[in-house]
């Protein structure tokens, strides 16, 4: 009893003391996950973001405004993520923007961020339809959505086959994580198949996907020309291993960006050699910005990653790119609403809608070639839609293409249709972007 009493008293005391005083700084809540089945992604991505924020702060912040953040462990669980968001959104003068790196949590936040007027970025995941800024005012799938990604994959395969129209009559197996995430691109893929005349075989893999003999035997039976692997977590190395076991060449597998990190291929060992995956940021430590992070932060013991070997890994660089996009959006907002001031979430939203990262600007930031140019607008909350393809050579991912996009016109049409349906369901009146500035 005494033990429980002390525990409870301690907890209450901790709660009371946990409320920190607010400073006039730009606050960004970090809904991270560093444990659980997807910990590798969470720790790398948020580690990269925090590293970049630290770098910006060490160089004087954004026109003198320092970034502050607070972390909250979500365990990739929707309910806990919502709690974290609610807990952090009012801290330190209020959240500027949020990115949960989890489709499930993002679903739980879509309504909330619209009500609280806090922009949410879903950098490379989330609802495909949310690229339509007319309906999804507060959601920004920066970079690429899943829909654009699958379109780029098809374009890549077409290129591999030798040009436009060459996929006609080919067979592509779509092997996916059997969940909302895996189903997301199916509509786009079907539309692309109808347009380009190839056949799609859909083979779902039950999460978590620890055994896949039956799925890969189906592949063996149906003999597709290519496999698109839409996996997550443990499903990816198992897929590559089982492909090796059933004799499907890994060179003919193209993975989504969630299936294209070191953590996905290293456990598969030699079975992963030759496997190609999509990415929307290039890994490596050669970029000046990564060098800065290494020499200014990690050399002084200020880096966020526990294992310095992961600097420049896929997830880490992706986190750095997220950091760049967010700081650039805030910078853009400051250009309009006052330099050196703390931006309100509405102003950050405006900034996110007016990101214009040209190649020149990216070079200035020391990240030339790390990610494609991004230009968002009121109606286009995505801004790029380009991905790069990279091959695992057994030690590292090597690029096989530059940044490239697929059939963006087709995707945009699907986005608008789906967004219109969402607006009708939710009784939202879309904003007329031609009247916005």
């Amino acid at each position, binding site marked *: 009893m005494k033990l429980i009493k002390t525990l409870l008293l301690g907890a209450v005391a901790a709660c009371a003391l946990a409320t920190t005083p607010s400073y006039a700084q730009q606050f960004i809540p970090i809904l991270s996950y560093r444990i659980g*089945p997807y*910990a590798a992604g969470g720790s790398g991505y948020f580690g990269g973001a925090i590293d970049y924020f630290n770098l910006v702060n060490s160089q004087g912040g954004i026109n003198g405004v320092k970034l502050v953040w607070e972390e909250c462990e979500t365990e990739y669980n929707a309910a806990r993520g919502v709690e974290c968001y609610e807990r952090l959104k009012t801290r330190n003068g209020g959240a500027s923007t949020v990115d949960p790196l989890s489709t499930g949590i993002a679903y739980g936040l879509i309504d909330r961020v619209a009500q609280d007027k806090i922009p949410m970025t879903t950098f490379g995941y989330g609802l495909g339809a949310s690229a339509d800024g007319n309906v999804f005012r507060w959601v920004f799938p920066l970079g690429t959505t899943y829909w654009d990604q699958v379109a780029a994959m098809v374009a890549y395969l077409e290129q591999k086959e030798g040009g436009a129209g060459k996929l006609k009559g080919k067979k592509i197996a779509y092997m996916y994580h059997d969940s909302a995430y895996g189903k997301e691109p199916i509509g786009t893929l079907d539309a692309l198949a109808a347009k380009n005349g190839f056949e799609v075989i859909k083979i779902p893999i039950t999460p978590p996907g620890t055994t896949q003999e*039956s799925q890969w035997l*189906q592949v063996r039976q149906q003999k597709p020309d290519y496999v698109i692997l839409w996996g997550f*977590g443990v499903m990816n190395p198992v897929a590559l*291993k089982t492909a090796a076991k059933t004799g499907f060449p890994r060179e003919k597998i193209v993975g989504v960006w969630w299936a294209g990190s070191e953590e996905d291929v290293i456990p598969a060992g030699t079975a992963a050699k030759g496997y190609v995956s999509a990415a929307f940021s290039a890994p490596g430590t050669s970029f000046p910005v990564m060098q800065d992070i290494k020499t200014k932060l990690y050399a002084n013991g200020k880096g966020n990653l526990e294992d310095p070997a992961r600097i420049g890994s896929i997830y880490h660089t992706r986190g750095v790119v997220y950091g760049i996009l967010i700081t650039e959006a805030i910078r853009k907002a400051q250009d309009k609403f006052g330099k050196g001031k703390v931006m309100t979430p509405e102003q950050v939203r405006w900034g996110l809608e007016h990101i214009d990262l040209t190649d020149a600007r990216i070079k200035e930031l020391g990240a030339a070639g790390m990610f494609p140019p991004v230009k968002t607008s009121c109606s286009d909350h995505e801004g790029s839609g380009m991905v790069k393809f990279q091959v695992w050579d057994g030690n590292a991912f090597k690029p096989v293409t530059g940044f490239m996009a697929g059939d963006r016109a087709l995707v945009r049409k699907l986005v608008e249709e789906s967004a219109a349906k969402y607006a009708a369901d939710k009784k939202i009146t879309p904003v007329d972007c031609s009247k916005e500035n």
Partner: protein
Amino acid sequence: MSFFFEVLIGGLLSGVMYSLVALGFVLIYKASGVFNFAQGTMVFFAALTFVGFTELGLSFWAALPATLAAMVVLGLVIERGVLRPLVNQPQISLFMATIGLAFLLEGLSQLLWGSEVRGLDIGIPDEPIAWISDRFGLNISRFDLSAALIAAVLVIALALFFSRTRIGRALRAVADDHQAALAVGIPLQQIWAIVWGVAGAVALVAGLLWGARNGVQYALTFVALKALPVLMLGGLESIPGAIVGGLIVGASEKLAEVYIGPYVGGGIEGWFPYVLALVVLLFRPEGLFGEKIIRRV
């Protein structure tokens, strides 16, 4: 037809991998009546500890006994810290305690060794054996075959241990009746410590094989979900049941996925073994090999 056999054999062999995990459940349930939910986490714990030791510079053959020792110590600590204080409590409380244990082990192992994803190479290539592919046109992985062999050795060793050694016989007595065993002077707590130690060793074997296939990462704890229908089918307290159950589950889920899956949208592997086990249980409520419970008023 050769495709059918390929699916069947692939299924049987992956069933063996499920059996390996199920064995650990059976051992503990048999000796103490505890449904040890932490078994999956123990598999993860064992694999991670093994990899951790090799990262410290130990060779494969040095890390193996070191991890084994760690698993036995873990078993002793669990008996002392969790089971002994909860002796004579309702089964559901013990079950719940093992869930608490699962959380504890999950956090502890990652605190100790970090939560990065690691590869594990135990030197057995996971590739089709060439001469079988050439002769019969069937792809059979060397790794799967080795796993089946290891499982067979393990089962024989356990069977001998249970029937031929003093401790083994004492174990069977405890399984039959705790009170009677105590009355004839069998040290119950010692027996439990031994069983948890042995379950830890089985978890190590399962952890190495599963870790080599899937990589050593948190998702290894999910293999427990594959073992549960095996347990139901085979019976909670039967070692042969775990093996037979594993074979049935492995083969039937693969065949169902390949031959029924496409008609219903696929992905039925997740629930099919459970539904199959459910149907079997309707006819044999204690599983195929479980002890028949006679209920009297």
